[in-house]
C-alpha cells in the first residue's frame, strides 16, 4: 500500500516537472512575445521521439518496431538531442509559421501543423512505427544506479525537478533582460517595435526556437520515464491544458505559471486517473476536458490576468541624480 503511494507521488512529480517545462516554454513564447503556439505538442513529441530512438538501439530486421536513426547513446546525450531536435523543428516551423500575418492566423497555422504532423506520423509506419508508436525504451542509468524501483522513481523525479529549476532560472533571467523587454514590445505593438529598430521576425523566431528546445527537453524527459512513445498520446488537446494552466496562474508571471501547472493539469487530469472510475469507462476522461475548457473560460471572464498577474517592473533609479 505504502509503496504504491510513493510510486504515485513520484510519478506525479515527474508529470508536474514536464508540465512545468511546457508552461515555462509557452509563457516565454506567449506571455512575453505574444506568439500563440497551438502546435506546442509537436515540438515535445519530436524531442521525445528523438530521445527514444537514440536510446532504443539500432532498428534491425530482428526488431519488432520500425524507426529511423536508431542508436544507443549514453545518458545524457539522448536528452541533449531531444532539446536540439525540438529547437531545430521550431526553427523550421517558425520560419514558415511566423510570417508577418495576424497573430490569430499564426495560431491557427500552428494548430493545423500539429494536426497534420499527427496524421503523418500515424500513417507512416517505416518512419515512426505508425500509430503503435515505440515501446520498451530503456530508462536512463537504471542498471548503473542499482537502486530499488522506488529509489529510482525518486531519483528520476529529483533529476526532473533539478532541470526544471535550471530552465526556470534561465527563462526568468532571459525574460528580464533587454531581450525579454524587446519581446514584450513586440507583443504589445509590433509596428511600433519595428519602428524603434527591433527586428520583429527575428525576435519571434528566437523565442520560438528557445521554446522549442525546452519542449524537446520535456518530451525527452517524459519518454525516458514512461518508456513508450505513441502518437496518440501527443494530441493537440494537451497543449490547451498548459495554456489553461498559464491563464489560471497568470500570463507573464513565472510563479503564476508554476501555480497554474500545479493546479490545472495535476488536479484535473492526472489525479482522477488514480481514482476509482465513475459512470461508464471513459466518462471521467471526457469530463476532464470539459472541466479544462470551463476553467479556461471562467478565468478569462473573472480574472483575465490570472491568480498572479504579470509584475510591474519598476524604473531603475536615476543614479546621476542620487549621486548629486
Amino acid at each position, binding site marked *: 500500500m505504502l509503496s504504491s503511494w510513493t510510486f504515485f507521488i513520484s510519478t506525479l512529480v515527474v508529470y508536474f516537472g514536464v508540465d512545468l517545462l511546457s508552461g515555462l516554454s509557452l509563457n516565454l513564447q506567449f506571455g512575453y512575445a505574444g506568439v500563440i503556439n497551438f502546435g506546442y505538442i509537436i515540438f515535445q513529441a519530436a524531442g521525445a521521439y528523438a530521445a527514444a530512438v537514440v536510446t532504443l538501439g539500432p532498428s534491425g530486421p530482428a526488431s519488432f518496431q520500425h524507426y529511423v536513426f536508431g542508436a544507443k547513446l549514453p545518458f545524457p546525450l539522448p536528452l541533449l538531442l531531444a532539446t536540439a531536435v525540438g529547437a531545430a523543428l521550431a526553427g523550421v516551423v517558425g520560419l514558415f509559421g511566423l510570417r508577418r500575418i495576424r497573430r490569430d492566423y499564426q495560431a491557427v497555422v500552428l494548430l493545423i501543423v500539429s494536426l497534420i504532423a499527427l496524421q503523418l506520423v500515424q500513417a507512416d509506419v517505416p518512419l515512426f512505427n505508425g500509430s503503435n508508436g515505440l515501446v520498451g525504451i530503456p530508462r536512463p542509468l537504471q542498471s548503473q544506479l542499482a537502486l530499488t524501483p522506488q529509489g529510482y522513481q525518486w531519483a528520476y523525479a529529483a533529476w526532473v525537478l533539478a532541470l526544471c529549476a535550471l530552465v526556470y532560472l534561465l527563462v526568468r533571467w*532571459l525574460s528580464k*533582460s*533587454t*531581450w525579454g*523587454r*524587446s519581446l*514584450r*514590445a513586440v*507583443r*504589445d*505593438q509590433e*509596428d*511600433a*517595435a*519595428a*519602428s*524603434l*529598430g*527591433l*527586428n*520583429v521576425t527575428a*525576435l519571434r523566431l*528566437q523565442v520560438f526556437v528557445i521554446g522549442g528546445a525546452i519542449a524537446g527537453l520535456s518530451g525527452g524527459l517524459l519518454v525516458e520515464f514512461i518508456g513508450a512513445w505513441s502518437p496518440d498520446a501527443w494530441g493537440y488537446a494537451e497543449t490547451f491544458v498548459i495554456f489553461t494552466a498559464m491563464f489560471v496562474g497568470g500570463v*507573464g508571471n513565472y510563479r503564476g505559471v508554476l501555480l497554474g501547472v500545479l493546479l490545472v493539469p495535476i488536479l484535473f487530469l492526472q489525479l482522477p486517473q488514480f481514482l476509482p472510475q465513475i459512470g461508464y469507462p471513459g466518462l471521467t476522461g471526457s469530463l476532464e476536458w470539459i472541466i479544462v475548457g470551463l476553467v479556461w473560460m471562467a478565468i478569462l471572464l473573472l480574472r483575465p490576468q490570472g491568480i498572479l498577474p*504579470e509584475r*510591474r*517592473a*519598476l*524604473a*531603475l*533609479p*536615476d*543614479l*546621476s*541624480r542620487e549621486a548629486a
Partner: protein
Amino acid sequence: MTAPDDMPGPSPAAPAAGPPAAPVLSARDVVIRYGGVTAVNGLSMDAFAAEAVGLIGPNGAGKSSFLAALGGQARIQSGSISLAGQNVSRLPAHARARRGIARTFQLTSEFSGMTTFENLVTAGHGAAGASLASVLAHPRRSRQQDLAMARRAWEVLERFELADIANAYGRELSGGQRRLVEIMRCLMRSPTVLLLDEPMVGVAPHLVDRMVADLKAIRDDGISLIIVEHALEVVRELCDRVVVMADGASIAAGSYEQVVKDREVQAAYLG
C-alpha cells in the same frame, strides 16, 4: 500651384552662404495601392535637417499612408525613398529605424503592458538591446547599457515633466500622455527624421502650446520633422513649409500663408 520638390528652399540650419544642403529624406513619385484603392498617387517630397514640414489635407487624402511609405510600414508600388542619399525603398521598417527614421502613429502605439520607463528604455536600446547574442555573451555589459539608458530615460522624462508617470503602464495613461510617450520614445533614439501622425489628437489644449514649443526645440536640434496635423494653428506655428495633399497627390506646397490662400486647397477642404 507648385510641385513640392520644385521649391525645397534651403534648410534653416544651413549656413546662409554655403552650398544648399542635401535633403535628409527624399521621396520620389511614391505610389501606394491597397487593393483597388490608390492611397498615394505619385507624391514627391524632400525633408531637410532642422526643418518642420507640415502635411495637411482632408481625411483619406493619403497622409498616413505616405508616412507609412517613409517609415517602411507600407510597401510602395512604385517610386523611391532615400535617406541621407541612400535608397531605402526596399528596407524593412526596423532597418530604416536603425538608419535614423523615428515615428509616431495616428492610433497611439505605446507598449500598453510596459511602464512608461520601459517604453523609453526599450526604444533607447533598440536593436542593440534586442540582440539575444549580446545578452547571452555579455550580460554585464548589457546591464551597464541598461543603466546608461535609464539615465537618458530620466533626462527625457524630466524634459517633458513626466517623471511621475515613469511607473505607469501604457494602458493606464491618458490619450495625451500616450502621444507624449511615443514622442519621448522617438527622442530616446536620436533620430535624424521624425514622422508625427496627428500628434496633438487627445492632447489637452493647455499642453498643445507646450508640445509645439518642445517640437520646435527638437527641430532646432537639427532633426527633420514631418508632421501630419489637422489643427491648422499648430501647423502655422510650427511648420516652415506645408504640403497639401488630396486624393493621394500634392495639390499645393509652400509657406502656410501661401497654401491657405490657394483656391484648390480651399476647394479640397470644403469638399
